[in-house]
């Protein structure tokens, strides 16, 4: 009995068809026989309208001129896939018929031949499409693929690449941090083919905010615009964060946004910059925020963990004026969050979406409030590590 192994699953290749067909088109020369066959098929099927040389001057009388392949323009795009589809489907309403009676491989060969008649198309190479970060932070806007299995594609996404190899990945329509990567920066796949494809962030994900699908990063509790519930608990009012600007200043990029209440009124401007930070104990990243605070009630800053995270330890670094909260997420990951405020004391609460910092304006306080949140990502954690956390200086 013949052996029948299960089908081999290949990793999904985003640009696979175009890549496969580029090899057919001219990057490598075709076998002689294939070339002749494609040309013969062209003469038999296409030349009547498109001319023997593909110059658009065939013998057929048409109600509109046929395309000149030599000039390189196509109704539905000049990628091999687009030309193949047009050959297969035709262009309804125009004299271009469908050639689905031809086999798929014949149609693909014809697409390759037709493209070869036109001007050479310079494709950006991998080398050219990779953006690298040198000494200056780089901000890139684009379509982002889902950062995780739980996340969705972001048509308005934003990547900040820092010189120390971190990439901060944001959603830009509702400004929020989705996750942090480490490694190379990004490949602009949208510079190839017909464009409009997702960016390819190259770094490896080291931390996700809420598994890559965070709720609102900022919300309000208490105060006149917050409704109470019948049992007296306070409802959290999510704030919408509108992107206002990105500003690169040397190695840092600052994002600014406007925090807007559900009723459309503005709370104020938020600023955020992020970068790498580490100590001998663990490495991680730091977010430096300038947040507006409501006159009544409190602002909650989401910390990126799902509800049910356990507080393993809390300690103060009086010198650095930093409060550490060591949290274990529901998936077991431990994060050491070091919070420093320009005024007031950090208060950690269990919000409906997970742990959050709750900040209240102090009387006479000059806003915005500065909030620095260091996130260290140790590989593991025991109680002894608390000392290392405090002892090792951060840089």
């Amino acid at each position, binding site marked *: 009995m*013949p052996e029948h192994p299960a089908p081999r699953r290949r990793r999904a290749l985003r640009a696979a068809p175009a890549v496969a067909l580029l090899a057919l088109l001219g990057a490598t020369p075709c076998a002689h026989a294939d070339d002749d066959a494609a040309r013969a098929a062209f003469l038999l099927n296409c030349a009547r309208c498109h001319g023997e040389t593909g110059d658009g001057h065939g013998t057929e009388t048409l*109600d509109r001129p046929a395309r000149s392949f030599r000039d390189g323009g196509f109704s539905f795009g000049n990628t091999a896939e687009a030309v193949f589809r047009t050959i297969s489907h035709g262009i309804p309403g125009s004299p271009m018929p469908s050639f689905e009676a031809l086999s*798929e491989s014949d149609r693909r060969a014809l697409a390759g031949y037709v493209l070869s008649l036109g001007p050479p198309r310079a494709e950006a190479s991998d080398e050219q499409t990779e953006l690298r970060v040198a000494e200056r932070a780089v901000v890139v806007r684009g379509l982002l693929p889902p950062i995780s299995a739980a996340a969705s594609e972001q048509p308005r996404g934003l990547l900040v690449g820092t010189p120390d190899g971190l990439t901060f990945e944001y959603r830009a329509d509702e400004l929020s941090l989705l996750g942090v990567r480490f490694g190379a920066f990004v490949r602009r796949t949208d510079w190839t083919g017909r464009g409009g494809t997702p960016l390819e962030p190259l770094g490896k994900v080291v931390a996700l905010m809420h598994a890559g699908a965070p709720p609102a990063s900022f919300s309000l509790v208490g105060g006149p615009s917050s409704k109470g519930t019948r049992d007296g608990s306070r409802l959290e009012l999510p704030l919408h964060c509108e992107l206002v600007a990105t500003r690169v200043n040397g190695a840092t990029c600052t994002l600014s946004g406007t925090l807007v209440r559900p009723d459309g009124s503005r709370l104020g401007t938020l600023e955020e910059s992020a970068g790498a930070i580490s100590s001998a104990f663990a490495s991680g990243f730091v977010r430096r925020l300038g947040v507006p605070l409501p006159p009544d009630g409190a602002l909650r800053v989401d910390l990126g963990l799902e509800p049910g995270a356990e507080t393993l330890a809390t300690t103060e670094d009086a010198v650095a004026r930093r409060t550490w909260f060591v949290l274990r997420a529901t998936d077991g990951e431990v994060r050491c969050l070091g919070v420093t405020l320009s005024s007031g004391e950090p208060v950690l609460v269990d919000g409906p979406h997970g742990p959050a910092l709750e900040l209240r304006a102090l009387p006479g306080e000059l806003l915005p409030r500065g909030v620095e949140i260091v996130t260290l990502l140790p590989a593991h954690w025991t109680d002894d590590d608390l000392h290392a956390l405090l002892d090792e200086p951060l840089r």
Partner: protein
Amino acid sequence: MTTRPPCTTLALPGAALALSLALVAPALVAQDGGPSADASTSDADEGSLLELEKRYYVVEPIPAPPGEVLEVGGLGRLSDGRLVASTRRGQVWLVDGALDDDPSDATTTLFAEGLQEGLGLCVVPGEHGARDRIFVVQRGELSELVDDDGDDRCDTIRTICNDWGLSGNYHEFAFGLPRDARGRFYVSLNVGFLNPEWWHGKSIAPYRGWLVRINPSDGAMTPIASGFRSPCGLGLDTDGTLYVTDNQGDWMPTCGIFAVHEGGYYGHPASLAWTDEYLANHAQPSDTMPPKRTRDPAAVWIPYAWSRSTGNLEPDTTAGRFGPFAGQLFAAELTNGELLRVQLEEVRGRKQGAVFRFRRRIGSLVRVLFTDEGTLVGGMTNRGWGGLPPADGLVRIRWTGELPLEMHHVHLLQDGFEITFTKPLDTSRTIVPDDVTLTQYDYDSWWEYGSPERHTTAVPVTSTALSADGRTLTLRGADLVPGMVARVALANVRAADGSPLLHDEFAYTINQLPEGPLSTADVAKTVPPPPPRTSGAEGWLRLTYFDALDAWEQHGWQLVDAELDPEHPRTFMVRDGVNALVDTGPDASEFTSRYAMGDGRYHVEFMLPEGGRAAVYVQGRYGIALADDTHGLAADEPSSGALLPLADGTPSRAPAFDAYKGPGTWHALDVDFVAPRFDASGEKLADARFANVLLDDVLIQEDVALPACAAGRPSDEVALGPLVIAPRDGSPLALRTIQFRPVQPAVDDEGWVSIFNGDDLDGWRLSPGIEDPDGERWEAGGGELVGRGDTSHLFSPRGDYRDFELRAKVMISDGGNSGLYFRVAYGPGWPKGYEAQVNASMSDPQKTGSLYDLAPVHVELVPPDTWFDYHVTCRDESEGTHVTIAVDGVVVTDFVDTERRHASGHIALQQHHQGSVVRWRDIQVKVLD
């Protein structure tokens, strides 16, 4: 194998017109249709025309820095003279010295990067010594780029507005970027092109297909006008008129230039989804049916031969430094790679006018910008679209200073044109009516890709007169009609100084004539859609379309893209995709249809790896072998198309021909089957038969009786049974496109009563509160009942149907939705009763055959625009209300409602939303109780 392309037949009075122009080869408007001069202009003539054009306008490249590619999408000029160019790669470049004597000395430096495209740019000059401001429209936002520290590097990117919809579709470009006198910006938004029907533009995110205005002081976005498809270029004229160019495609007969007014709708229906009317009614525009809304006219329709993809347009503000055309507009054309000239006038309050060719063979020009010095700067890109090389970069176009002979401007008369030339004509030779070729034509406004020139009519001119100064030629006596383009070509025209007429033709879009009643006919005329391409599918049930697995009992099968694994050719290599159903291991089950079927044609497409083995069992009982013979077959092993041995000892029967092509190749198996016949007591009267078996259209079995089931299969013979496709010996097997065309049994009319008389709706009632005095919602006649327009329901005269059978013929439009309600109460809104859903391609996942919400069918059995038979039975039984729904005779839903939700009621027909069209015929009921 090739099909003959359709030709348009052209009706012309008299004999064929032969055209001879001084400079251009003959052969044009022939009796059986044909394009204008340019399409058959020989290369040699094009070449000589180009040489002529070069005398007057020179084109010079502005080189990019080595290794850099500038796919230009936006252009501007700083007060210090430097150019600014934004690109599709999200970069912004500063170019210094582009207008110096030698453009190759220009230095180009990077100002900004990381943008999400940049298909429009605007420099707002700084006032009172303040810095110039640079605005760029990216795919997702209108931004200001700010250099905070003056080092010619952008530091801050300010989001002015990011409120328009973005779905992630690759084609959702945002174009721009004119700025009006009040400082407000304009951005146009491309529709999306999705799979599988990539030829229909779709507006699936807010305001795709719209022109929007953005106020930079507060970022507020105001949608201005709709109906655009790929509005690649905008232009603001000095009189404040805003123009948008659109590209030929679905609903755009050719490239058009639209003078936009607020609230206008310019022809492509997809964007109507975001109008208040459509939003309020949850309506979806149809891809193929013309909407109620009439389209606003174009100021200019550009001949297809001259432009296939128009970019932006700019007014010549050089006060004569670019030649004698100050005040006229110049348009970028990307595919042919040329510059066009547009000259408009206002007639009866609206802009319309002429387009001329100007300078050819430039490159894939998509953006143009005039500089005060009189140079036109051009930006090029064609990646993904194709066009004349160069495919990217900057060029500049300058006037040599020599005055060409051109038709400077054209003025429409009631019966002709007044044409004023740039210099006096040679009066020694009189221009006569025979020197003038004037034709008129219009276009179809329809869902297919573009339109040929239609109704081309020769319109002779009876008189020609040249003014005393030799500058103006008046043509009169032409029987011009509005709502058509006039194409005028002149022969034998020469300047007094001997120079030839550089461009001898123009196309003038006549929306209105200067006098007479105002015309309501648009040049782009709504026509009934052509017969749908899928009408050949009538009678077929598609068992794997849309939701490929819904109609099948199976485990271990997956929907993937599959191809033969070149390294392990006994199996497939699969990846995410939708092209094949593959069993994913030896534990995969058989592939068994949920529906039981009988007489008809079964169509199964399959692919085997090397050594693959499978079988197709009609009714699960009668088998046809599929076998890959790459490594040979055992002596008695059946080959592809062989009939498997029967339980009664009948041996396998080899196919008449070996039509199997090999592993990794898709094949089509077609089986015409006749089920066994039984009498009332269940005794068999006639054997089952394979009338025909074809493999890739080769007949391999013919008229074979099947006295018993196949060995190893169930032995009871049945009138209806499932289609089973079984891999053998755990073999990998790939399947796709499984369809069944039932042979309908003879119609039994006993007891059936028509409830629709075919002519009128007497006795039927519309939903309460809805009036339809003109039959716009429901139209009856010729045996057909057609539903259109906004949501409404039509209730049968009788409202007491309880146990019955109900049958009808139905056809639903592409994107449309309807339903056959029964036991339904008369009332407003969505009726309360049972519904047999009617839906092919509309987004609702419940498709034709579903008992709505109770027993959904997700496979798209019947394509849109295809008649099918619907048969519903409804009967109270001991366990509940028993409902069956059959499509083309195959029962696809068999449901018992134990809750007995609806006791009795009307039969009703649904009209679901504006844009949907449903047709009903032969609606009949057989009451059972």
